[in-house]
């Protein structure tokens, strides 16, 4: 259930640490969506899960040559396709 692959891919928050994949789509409130897209989560972009914070949330991601942290609640709006 957790790693269920749908046509829309899986939520970025469900990727394991060390796993990477490509962005399929970005959903959510317009403001959040814009910010995520502008920070580089565009469809096709490759994203790697670097680590989770000691308390489990937020999560650190690597994309486009830099590191960014998002809460799981935001990361779930980024749908991923894993290799």
């Amino acid at each position: 259930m957790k790693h269920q692959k749908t046509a829309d891919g899986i939520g970025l928050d469900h990727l394991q640490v060390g796993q990477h994949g490509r962005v399929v789509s970005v959903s959510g409130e317009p403001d959040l969506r814009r910010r995520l897209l502008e920070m580089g989560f565009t469809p096709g972009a490759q994203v790697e899960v670097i680590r989770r914070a000691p308390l489990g949330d937020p999560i650190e991601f690597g994309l486009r040559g830099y590191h960014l942290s998002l809460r799981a609640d935001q990361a779930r709006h980024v749908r991923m396709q894993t290799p």
Partner: protein
Amino acid sequence: MSTCCEGTPRLNWRPGDVVIALAGNPNSGKTTIFNALTGLRQKVANYPGVTVEKKTGRCPLGGGQCALIIDLPGTYSLISRSLDETVAMEVLRGMRADTPVPDVVVVVVDASNLQRNLYLVSQLVELGRPMVVALNMMDIAQRRGLRISPERLSRELGVPVVPVVGHKRQGIDELKRAIQYARISPLPEWDLPREMQEELLVVGGALAILDDNEPLPKNLAGVGFRIPCCADLAGGTHVCPPDNCRAAQARLQRYTAVAERLLVGDRAADMGDVAGRDPVASLLRAAESRLSAHGIDAMQADIEAHYRWIEGVAAQSLTPACEDLLPMESGIVGEQTMTLDGPSEAHQPEDARITGQTLAYAPPTTHASEQVDQVFLHKIWGMVCFVAIMATLFVSIFWLAQPLMDATKAGVTWVGELVTPLLPVGPVRDLWSQGIVAGVGGVVVFVPQIAILFAFLAMLEDSGYLARAAFLMDRILSKVGLNGKSFIPLLSSFACAIPGIMAARTIENRRERLATIFVAPFMSCSARLPVYGLLIGAFFGAYSALVQGGILLSMYLIGITAAAGTAWLFKLGGEKEAASSFILELPTYKIPQWSQVLRAVYTNTKAFIMKAGTIIVCLSVVLWALMYYPRLSEQQIAEAEAGAKTSFVGTNVDFKPGISLERMAEIRAKMHEKDMQEAVEQNRKNKETSVAAEQLRQSTAGRFGHLIEPVIKPLGFDWKMGVGLVGAFAAREVFVSTMGIVYSVGAEDENTAPLEQQMAADKSADGRPVWTPLVAISLLIWFVLAMQCMSTLAIVRRETGSWKWPVLMLVYMNALAWVVCFSVYQVGSRLI
């Protein structure tokens, strides 16, 4: 060349100056470059109406020309969400009446994070202003194996690109020279879906027809695709005169650019309310629904097109030799980039465009930085390091600063005593020694603490650790309705709530920002420290250092608990607003630069001293006057003297066998003489004390203390403490000097044993001691929880833009303090 910029205290724009806007992403090293360009010729103010810092500086360009450099707030995008970004966007678009329209935009690009930084560049390209790129952090990029060629990037963008290493001042002179060669970057053809281009033409065309002096934005470069003309429709031959066609195309370019901004959801102020009113509103709705039928979202398509362009530019800007370092999909063909040495082809975006969904995924950080994070963000060690770093911070503030504070205090006393004899006896001398020296001196002693704290904060920030601390703390802070980004403001508030409250600007969510501002004063600031020190020293001095330290620590913990509870109430009671978000870049670790740290210390310490020199001087004078006037009449003085207790001469010398009677009498006479002198001295002191106490009782402040006594009595406080509390409202540390004046010991040696002893010995009318450990605890808690700082209220007013919050803060905090102190004192006095 030297005449224009030197010795100009006011950095106003002058005709003939080149106006330069310095733009860039947060963490791009923009501030370092601004400092390198302008040196100390800086002026920091606020943009009128908003609290965004407006930093300007002047810089000689050579050839007698000067530049006014406007340091814009760091921004990821020109479509704004936060106040900072709005200001940056408005300055760049020339929408702010208070800021000259920039002639040149210098954009700082972090070479080690090229793609994300180029996103802002791609938006600046659309703006159509002359531009220069300062390619910063080339050293880090190189260490990471990214060999970016500034020449190639320059060819791609069509603007000068200057490699700089900001902190080493490398390339700064070249950057100044390059400003003269700033160019408008040729507008690339964005890879927008055909359907969207069509919709843009439709909306743009409609806007051109509808144009009835609508406040449509100017200064647009046009839209990033070719506008068709009559020749496109007529198979390549112009039907109308080509000049007409070109004019129509240019006109349509501009309107289509406006249409693009409207369709992608850019609602900046230069748009007016065009988008909200018919017929444009319905035009946009129709276009949106047609696009969504094709599965296209204008905003996303626009950003995607920008990133596709960026990927191309970034790929073309690499030095060919290291291209294999980037694991890329097959899209980029090696030969293509190899042929780009000829300048003519470089501008052709078609060459750069990569087909398919290719994307460079460079190793995000240097190996070293990643290794550091393996410890600092480790599940267990991360938290251990966090606690250790915070502990080090507090230890340095409190223990490292102590000798420096003692030295400062000695210095203040020395200056006070040096000047005092020069002043005429009477109000002027009293004003100096009791008002100004005691008041300002009491504040200036905190300079070492403030300096150490800001040095620490600057080092943590410069190194990149503060972002990690926010990352570690977000979970905990979000539980109580705050944000990981609240961590930095709250940490700063342990020095002083004012910089803390200002640092809350980085929090995008309004409710979280307000909550952070609201709870920041619960953090025990450095001004409370001398009060804690005085009370703990006076009443718990007999206990071990461990107990004293424990009491001190509990004061901090009580504050933190109150902050958490209050933030949680905020979360419950707050209106449902935009969802909380935490999107934070974790920059590569860097070694902090001493120049930047020292600059932060200098700026903040200067601001603190300025405050001490202005506001606190005035308040000290006012408070002193309230305690000094009205003066007692001769008769009242006589009465007070008569009421003073008289010391008697002690003559009981024990008779010791074996001493002759003569010797005995001799000793007795000698002792008597000495005792007499002491007794006279003591009686004189008693009289002085009595007069001073009576003077205080009859003063305006004393009367006020009596007036509020019924309110504070249930908390265990008497009217003298009431006077102290009133004094503390100017600045908490004034409590100590007020108590010094109240207890009629010289204000200069406020922290020495006599004051503490006098306080401990003070008896109320019924003979019970005024001060008990319970009263001290109650008063300590009062100081933790109560809002007693006018400067904080003023800053909250400024940051929130209304009196509602400071008033609410004042009422809430003082009510909370009263209730807690009441419970503690009442319950405590029944238990003991």
